[in-house]
């Protein structure tokens, strides 16, 4: 069974074509880091796959089916900056949103749902902040709330858009522990990532992306100097030499 299969995917952003001929098949239970320079189309790739951004061509199948039929099995953690953190609500409420699909439309969350949400917050080390206004959380705490919201969804495939950008060290550790736990529970996780130095520690698979896939495979096989330079262009100094 395939978890996620992408064929001949192309997409444009405003006037520019940012993705062309993207083809890949994701191994179930893998933890993939998607890396590439700015403007390589990393976020766009996630959005196009999730049908949040239109594609020009191509086919994306989830669990050998369509996204519409498998929505409940797919979780998405958008970039932290994509929402308005001044919105008047608390951390628990945001986590509860992850359960809305399960609760059903136009129904109110039950006590059990609230307990599930609290548990997810606790897993992210945020139990004490359940009633805190989201506007009063630090960037790292906001990111952990987002992760907790994804956890309660109990999906089988997760997409995360730069969850480690601008967070403190404690949050980074908490998030990576969670991702590894998801992986050992058999979930498939794809993470847009920026920091080349941590790729080998964090991900067992890596996708090198620059408008199309340069390489995709096991980290120890494809995360090489040549491939990274091919992705980023010649300007990048290979950190192992530094």
């Amino acid at each position: 069974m395939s978890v996620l299969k992408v064929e001949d995917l192309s997409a444009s952003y405003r006037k520019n074509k940012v993705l062309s001929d993207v083809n890949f098949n994701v191994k179930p239970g893998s933890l993939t880091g998607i890396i590439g320079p700015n403007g390589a189309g990393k976020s766009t790739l996630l959005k196009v796959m999730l049908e949040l951004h239109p594609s020009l061509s191509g086919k994306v199948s989830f669990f050998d089916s369509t996204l519409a039929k498998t929505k409940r099995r797919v979780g998405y953690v958008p970039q932290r900056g994509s929402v308005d953190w001044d919105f008047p609500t608390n951390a628990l409420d945001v986590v509860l949103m992850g359960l809305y699909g399960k609760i059903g439309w136009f129904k109110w969350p039950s006590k059990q749902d609230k307990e599930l949400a609290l548990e997810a917050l606790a897993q992210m080390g945020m139990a004490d902040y359940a009633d805190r206004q989201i506007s009063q959380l630090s960037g790292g705490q906001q990111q952990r709330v987002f992760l907790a919201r994804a956890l309660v969804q109990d999906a089988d495939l997760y997409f995360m858009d730069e969850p480690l950008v601008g967070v403190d060290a404690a949050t980074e550790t908490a998030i990576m522990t969670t991702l590894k736990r998801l992986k050992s529970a058999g979930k498939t996780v794809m993470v847009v990532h920026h920091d080349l130095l941590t790729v080998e520690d964090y991900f067992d698979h890596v996708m090198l992306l620059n408008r199309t896939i340069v390489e995709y495979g096991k980290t120890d096989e494809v995360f090489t100097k040549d491939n990274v330079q091919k992705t980023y262009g010649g300007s990048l100094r290979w950190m192992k030499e530094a």
Partner: protein
Amino acid sequence: MLDIFLSPNAQWVLFSTLILGTAAGMVGCLSYWKRQSLMSDALSHAALPGVVIAFSILGYKNLPFMIFGAAVSAFIGAWLIQLIRSSSRVKEDAAMGLILSVFFGLGIMLLTVVSRKGGGNQAGLDSFIFGQAASMVRTDVYTMMAVAIVIIAVVIIGFKEWKLFLFDPDFAKGLGLSSRLMDGLYLAMLVLVIVIGIQAVGVILMAALLIIPPVSAHYWTMSFKRMLVLSAIFGGGSGLLGTLISTMGKGWPTGPFIVIASASIFLVSVLAGTQRGLLVRALQLQLQRKQHRLESRPIPRQPVKEGK
């Protein structure tokens, strides 16, 4: 004076502006968090040409038909705003300002033409600019209340969905909540509340009933639910109060009084609001200072050590 309030017709009018204000306060709260407060202003101005055209087609005042005209014209305005924004480099606020003034200018122009050639019947048309709740007849009141109640129900039933849609539309879409549906529903409610409000409040000032209540409510609470409730109460309250005052004089327009009532609530909220009010903030600072003084024990001051 009191006999005005006792007449059943006046009571109905009062009740209808109360419901209208409540619905406007709720829809305004959605607009506020969609960061589209100005949109309501643009759309209410954009409704005027439709009202006038509907009137000149029939030749007499017929509320349902004029509401229809207003809705068509407001939707065209909304569509043009989207079109300008997506097909040119013009930003949304500029697009709204453009549509607002062009449609209002067009409306006034048509109004002048219609009143030049028409008979005495069009006198009531002026009330669509500043609002004249007293000129409403029983069927107008029924139409208004029915639409307002539907809007209130849609906001309450979909409360959880509205919250998700306003906070994180992409995530909502991921869960299967169509943002096209929610956007369409929101726009429909906005246009409907505007068109049922223009006879009572007028096209120029309708925005006040949509913008001021949520802004005032935000001074009192940090919860979306309570903000929605407060915004509804403030909107309903200003509708009621403004109409009440305007019925005291003969031919007084309703809109301006509703705006003043709404603005008074805003003023009180800015000063005394429990979350962001100026007085509360000053008081908190005083208390903290006092506590700080009490907590820091008077210890003999050490001489400042100079680094060498």
